């Protein structure tokens, strides 16, 4: 087949136009009508949590409920520890806010329940090279474990230590080594993957509140939409004195504490 210069350029031009259309077709595919959001899922503009530290001491019920439903491994070696939500000292949760002149029960014994803050400006999302960590439209900072390559940039970036790395296979942990003990509704992770609290995104999709809130004692935890002025969390944050962890860093956490 012979082709003159003019015809070749025409064909090449049309071909190049077609290539330019590729990204557009990808965009269209993103709104695939074959995929639907769950009908009974909770919808929010910006999910937030209020933790009341004035009620009672440790909240082990909330912690164990979370760790159980998310198959968080309990390793014997403390250096392999994986945690999504945990108790820490007041002075460590709020550095700079504890002073030596405080009553000792606040400074030393008052503990704070801490978890991923699901920041408005999440530093972990900025540093993730594979976009395994990303921020959803409803404010949840979520991990796509499939994409995590285990570089741990996010762990270095998170000012709250909210992330844990799987140094060993989580299924080798005593609580996950038998299939019967593994909760069947949530996958485990694999070795070499970072994990953290997901604000129970999988439960919100079924219309349920996060497991820690549901299991917290004395109603010390509240979950709701900060974008909805009528929600419980909005009303409390508007009416009571609340603080957030390391506010000065500008990450804008979504977890508020009543102290």
């Amino acid at each position, binding site marked *: 087949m012979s082709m003159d210069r003019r015809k070749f350029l025409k064909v090449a031009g049309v071909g190049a136009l077609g290539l330019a259309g590729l990204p557009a077709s990808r965009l269209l595919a*993103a709104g*695939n*009508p*074959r*995929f*639907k*959001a*769950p*009908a009974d*899922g909770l919808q929010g503009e910006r999910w937030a949590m209020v933790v009341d530290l004035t009620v009672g001491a440790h909240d082990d019920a909330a912690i164990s409920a979370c760790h159980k439903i998310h198959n968080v491994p309990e390793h014997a070696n403390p250096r392999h520890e994986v945690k999504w939500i945990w108790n820490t000292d007041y002075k460590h949760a709020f550095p700079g806010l504890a002073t030596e002149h405080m009553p000792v029960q606040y400074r030393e014994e008052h503990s704070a329940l801490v978890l991923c803050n699901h920041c408005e400006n999440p530093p972990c999302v900025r540093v993730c090279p594979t976009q395994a960590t*990303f921020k*959803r439209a409803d404010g949840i900072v*979520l991990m*796509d*474990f*499939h994409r995590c390559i285990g570089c741990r940039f996010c762990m270095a970036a998170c000012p709250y230590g909210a992330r844990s790395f799987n140094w060993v296979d989580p299924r080798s942990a005593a609580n996950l080594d038998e*299939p*019967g003990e*593994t909760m*069947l*509704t*949530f*996958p*485990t*992770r*694999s070795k070499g993957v970072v994990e953290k609290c997901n604000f129970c*995104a*999988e439960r919100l*999709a*079924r219309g349920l509140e996060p497991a820690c809130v549901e299991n917290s004692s004395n109603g010390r935890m509240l979950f709701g939409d900060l974008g909805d002025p009528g929600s419980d969390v909005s009303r409390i944050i508007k009416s009571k004195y609340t603080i957030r962890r390391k506010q000065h860093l500008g990450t804008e956490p979504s977890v508020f504490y009543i102290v």
Partner: protein
Amino acid sequence: MYDKGKVVPGLIIFLALVLSPIIYNGMSESAGVVPELTYPAGETRCVESKQYMRENHMQLLFDWRETVVREGNRTYVAEDGKEYNMSLSGACLSCHTKKEEFCDRCHTYLKVKPYCWDCHIIPPQLPKENV
């Protein structure tokens, strides 16, 4: 031809060596055995047609994974309008209850090793409404 006495036997030995895996497999018991997938009892259709699933299940699962995790969609509307919960353990394995007779049958045959089950849990008896 020079050195016929050396070249011809050499060629025969070379061919025998190169073809030996093919000849060996051709004579073994598994020769010509192609894995056969059957529908679970009482079922006549997977989420999509048999042909589509055979050719595209990996892409389908990949799309499911992307949209569930990243876009928060959990329901899949199939070609025939039926709706499915997009879940590997909860949807696929709730019908095809035995992984050994479903995933493994072809994957072992083709020597492919997807790492789904490093994290996802092989359900012994998983209720259908679960994730």
